[in-house]
């Protein structure tokens, strides 16, 4: 393939979510929604791997990486970070009417933005993380693929080959007991697992670019989406109640009375062996 002519390049869109970094997340008991204040935000780790894969493919084949995120205005931080890894362009979808969207509404909004983007330039590939660590739903990527009618390849652990001219991609998908190799036509949507790559340590100029970059902001005046399909209104699922998992019963400390290690070992074995050793299983 002749890269220099620029005839075959790929444009890749990456959907990423800014998520709270720790599991110290609390719910607002009044609204049953996430309270995100005071918790450091990061790019969802799986999405970071999606971005890395997009950058690697772009560096190999040529083209552009455009990063999209739906979220509150503060999510520009994660998009600037994406630029600092080397993405070419970043767009934040933010609007009050988007707030409270579940996965169904979120995939609707992202799809709307991707379609708008595709009026400007073609997109060959969309990459997402396999799931977000805050919601763990793994639904938005498949939702976008369904809405666009594109092939969906989830849990991708390796991009074996991408051929912009043949309009096809070959990937490995991680399964419970191994993997499978699939070929799909382009355009396609991939969700990726962490094993797919190692995240780069970007060159300094990309970091400076990230620090200076002005993220594009799109709201619903840009997207013209159906208001009944947005936000809480457009979300069929809702949290009816929340609780904490039952605490485990208070445990037993063995050998507090200065017993020797051998005595404690014997004591522990006494406790465990009847439960554990199931003969000839």
């Amino acid at each position, binding site marked *: 393939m002749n890269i220099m002519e620029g005839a075959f390049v790929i444009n890749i869109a990456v959907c990423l979510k800014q998520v*709270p970094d*720790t*599991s*110290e*997340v*609390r*719910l607002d008991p009044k609204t049953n929604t996430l309270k995100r204040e005071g918790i450091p935000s990061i790019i969802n*780790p799986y999405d970071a791997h999606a971005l890395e894969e997009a950058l690697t493919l772009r560096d190999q084949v040529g083209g552009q990486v455009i990063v999209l995120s739906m979220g509150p205005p503060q999510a520009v931080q994660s998009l600037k970070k994406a630029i600092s890894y080397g993405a070419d362009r970043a767009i934040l979808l933010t609007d009050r009417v988007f707030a409270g969207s579940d*996965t*169904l509404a979120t995939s609707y909004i992202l799809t709307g933005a991707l379609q708008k983007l595709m009026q400007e330039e073609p997109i060959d590939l969309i990459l997402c993380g396999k799931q977000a660590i805050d*919601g*763990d*739903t*793994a*639904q938005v990527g*498949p*939702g976008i693929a*369904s*809405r666009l009618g594109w*092939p*969906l*390849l*989830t*849990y991708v652990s390796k991009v074996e080959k991408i051929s912009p001219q043949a309009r096809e991609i*070959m990937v490995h*998908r991680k399964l419970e*007991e191994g993997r*499978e190799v*699939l*070929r*799909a036509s382009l355009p396609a949507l991939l969700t990726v697992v*962490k*094993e797919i790559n190692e995240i780069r340590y970007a060159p300094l100029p990309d970091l400076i670019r990230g620090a200076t970059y002005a993220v594009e902001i799109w709201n619903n005046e840009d997207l013209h989406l159906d208001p009944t399909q947005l936000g809480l209104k457009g*979300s*069929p*699922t*809702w*949290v*009816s109640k*929340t*609780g*904490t*998992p039952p605490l*485990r*019963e208070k*445990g*037993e*400390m063995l*050998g507090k009375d200065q017993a020797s*290690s051998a005595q*404690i*070992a014997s004591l*522990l074995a006494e*406790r*465990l*062996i009847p*439960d*554990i050793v199931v*003969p*000839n299983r």
Partner: protein
Amino acid sequence: MAEHPLGIWVYIEQEKGQVAPVSWELMGEGRRLADKLGTSLSGVVLGHQIDKVINRVFAYGADSVYAIDDPLLEPYRNQTHSHGLVQLCRDHQPEILLMGATTTGRDLSGSVATQLATGLTADCTELDIDVEKRKLLQTRPAFGGNILATILCRDRWPQMATVRPRVFPEPEAQKAPSSTVVRGKLSLQPKDVTVEVIKRINEERKEGYLDGTDIIVAGGRGLGTKENFQLVHNLAQALGGMAGASRPAVESGWISYSHQVGQTGYSVRPKLYIAAGISGAIQHLVGMQNAEIIVAINKDPDAPIFRVATYGIIADAAEFLPIFTEEVKKRMEGKAVTAKA
């Protein structure tokens, strides 16, 4: 307005006649929910040459089976299965649709829910019914496992949920006659299918899979060195279990990522989990706190791991592990003798 959707459906995940156990687990739970709701329970089978599977679905308590038999449905591909399942749902309007939260279930459910424009709750650990409102109460851990959220789906059908394997017990198969089988057609031509499975590579790990094992001995940074981590393997071997690890141990290069337990590794619920030299950061706890018995060995009496431990031992894990391993070996020998006698 059309008739109110009725019936609980369970997607039977199968390939070449092999059914994922979670599908049977869901049939058991589905029966309970259907009885509570006063509706029927059906299995949905998509594949090729699936008659045997269909018969087995009845043995797990189905009132009826919905099925599409088409060569394009084997092996599983998102495109063909979502197409077939969406078609069946549109034609027959189920009230509830359940799937296993397996790779396939998670791949398929998001596509189907989007095309049906309905709600979907992933990775449920508990299901119930609000009989009066005819709502499926879908409970799942949220936000790092610290909170359980119960989620409802309003005004859309089917109400969809995926459920983690091993949450519900697998029911016994009963001798039951086959009953109604509703067969659908896949309205896809081979040329319409844009994804092709080139090959499957089974990577059966010699030692099995961490999330499918009953006994896990996991080591953390408290062990100090890679050499000491061998002590974890030794005890795991003596107990017939597998070695697990905390993230710091994996990051130190003492063991591979496929042994990592926690938020960013495997979630496990073995019968026995021994945490050696693991302090018990929240991200680790969420991956293992559902174990039946937890043994914590740590030098630091204030280590958070002791808060979830069934048995706690304040000791240097590197010192204690070999002593306990010997003890186990001694007793295992005794056990074997007793069993023979």
